[in-house]
């Protein structure tokens, strides 16, 4: 027990240390000498078109960025363009394809504007009086860092669960190795999350989806905690990813909803008829709000966790003092351990609530 605890501590320290490393590299990228915490945090949390590894200023005072570029896929003005993100040279150059000229500005791709500034960016004021980019955007289906992150999760899950499934074919009776490690988790999802809310018989149909979503979120959360290998992408802390997952739950809930479910929406039992004009819109809104809460909960929890850990590390660079590390590293370690719990808890909550919504949609009259 003691040994394993020690191992965890070492592992967590390594994670923290590499987080600090990342933060320090990012800190140097800011052009001005002032350390902009917001910039660093947003850069880490947002999606990008390349897998940023490190950057530095070499002897000739050139800014060198080491990163893995990903393919960019754009559909705009009836044109279908594919090129590597390295062609942008991290936003220094525009990319011309046929009639379209694209620019990369703050990790977003726009059409170059004729009457813009030297970067080809044109600004406009929004209704609050803030300056926002006015350039038009092409339809963007690029393979971004988060797409790669999702892809990594998919690959790892396939590797793990196909091998576990093979294990079950080989030794159905006595699980061993990875299979023995995964079986309690699978059984936890089955017996402690899904079956109590959907019921033994009906859960069979929904168990594969709920298991997949549970492990997808769990792996996404855990990979998000790893700074370099497998991780670095803030997959489950991205609103698009959580939107997709919540959308699946919503679709499954409503497509498997039985007569009872729709009766509850359009003719709530025990409510007088004159209340229907209020109740029906509320219930219809509920169809949207439930998955919306799922989407926002996962996104906000994971993003908040990343922001807290990175903020704690950034404290060192704000104060420009290594002494601060003695405070921020233990706090960051604590937060990272807490995030391990949150990673599991959020996967649990998402799966549990999805199961609950589905369970409410398929339950019989009682």
């Amino acid at each position, binding site marked *: 027990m003691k040994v394993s605890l020690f191992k965890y501590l070492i592992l967590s320290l390594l994670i923290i240390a590499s987080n600090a490393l990342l933060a320090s590299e990012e800190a140097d990228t800011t052009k001005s000498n002032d350390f902009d915490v917001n910039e660093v945090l*947003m850069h880490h*949390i*947002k*999606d990008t078109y390349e897998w940023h590894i490190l950057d530095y200023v070499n002897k000739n005072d050139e800014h060198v960025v080491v990163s893995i570029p990903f393919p960019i*896929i754009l559909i705009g003005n009836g044109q279908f363009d594919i090129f590597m993100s390295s062609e942008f040279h991290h936003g220094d150059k525009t990319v011309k394809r046929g009639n379209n000229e694209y620019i990369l500005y703050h990790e977003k791709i726009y059409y170059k504007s004729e009457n813009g500034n030297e970067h080809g960016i044109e600004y406009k004021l929004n209704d609050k009086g803030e300056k926002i980019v006015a350039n038009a955007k092409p*339809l*963007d*289906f*690029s*393979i*971004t860092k*988060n*797409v790669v992150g*999702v*892809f990594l999760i*998919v690959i790892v*899950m*396939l590797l793990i*669960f*196909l091998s*576990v*499934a093979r294990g*079950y*074919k080989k030794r*159905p*009776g006595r699980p061993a190795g990875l299979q023995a490690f995964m*079986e309690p988790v*699978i*059984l936890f999802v*089955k017996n402690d999350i899904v079956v109590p809310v959907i019921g033994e018989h009906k859960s*069979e149909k929904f*168990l*594969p*989806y709920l*298991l*997949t979503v549970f492990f*997808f979120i769990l792996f996404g959360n855990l990979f998000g905690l790893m700074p370099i290998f497998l991780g670095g992408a803030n997959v489950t802390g*991205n*609103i*698009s*990813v959580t*939107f*997709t*997952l919540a*959308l*699946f739950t919503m679709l499954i809930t409503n497509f498997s909803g039985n007569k009872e479910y729709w009766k509850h929406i359009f003719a709530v039992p025990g409510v007088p008829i004159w209340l229907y004009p209020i109740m029906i819109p509320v219930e219809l809104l509920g169809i949207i709000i439930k998955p919306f809460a799922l989407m926002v909960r996962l*996104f906000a929890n994971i*993003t908040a966790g990343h922001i807290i850990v990175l903020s704690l590390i950034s404290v060192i660079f704000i104060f420009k003092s290594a002494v601060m590390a003695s405070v921020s590293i233990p706090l960051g370690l604590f937060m990272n351990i807490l995030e391990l719990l949150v990673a599991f808890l959020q996967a649990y909550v998402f799966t549990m609530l999805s199961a609950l919504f589905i369970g409410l949609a398929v339950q019989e009259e009682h």
Partner: protein
Amino acid sequence: MDLVTPNVGLIFWTGILFVLLLLILWKFAWKPILGTINKRNQSIEDALNAADKARQDMQKLQADNKKIIAEAATERDRMLKEAREFGDDIIKKAKEDAKLEIIKLKENAQMEISAQKAGAINEIKNQVAVLSVDIAEKILRRSLSTEEKHDDLVNDMLKDIKLN
């Protein structure tokens, strides 16, 4: 604002990858895994049921055994009792036989005794007669030396015989 605006491309790719993952895992992972676990649960349940049944059978068997033992015990008791009764009967009968035999023997003995007694009395009588005759002879020889004495004697003798 940027942070909470979903991106169509990422939704597209996530959706496609997730559906692919779901379908592949559904067919090649969850089905065999859950199937095997269910089958194993079933087999465990079957085994438990079988064990329960075996235990019940065992209990029944034990109860049967007890019943058989009890029956055997009663049978033994009965047999013992019978044997004892039989033995008692034999003893009783033997005693009775012995009693009868004794009575018979006694009777025989008494008969013998009476016969012997009679024989002995006869013998004694004969002896007494012989002795008497002898004595009488001797006395006669002596006393019949005279006539008178002779007569007296005859008379006495006659008197005696009458009395007898």
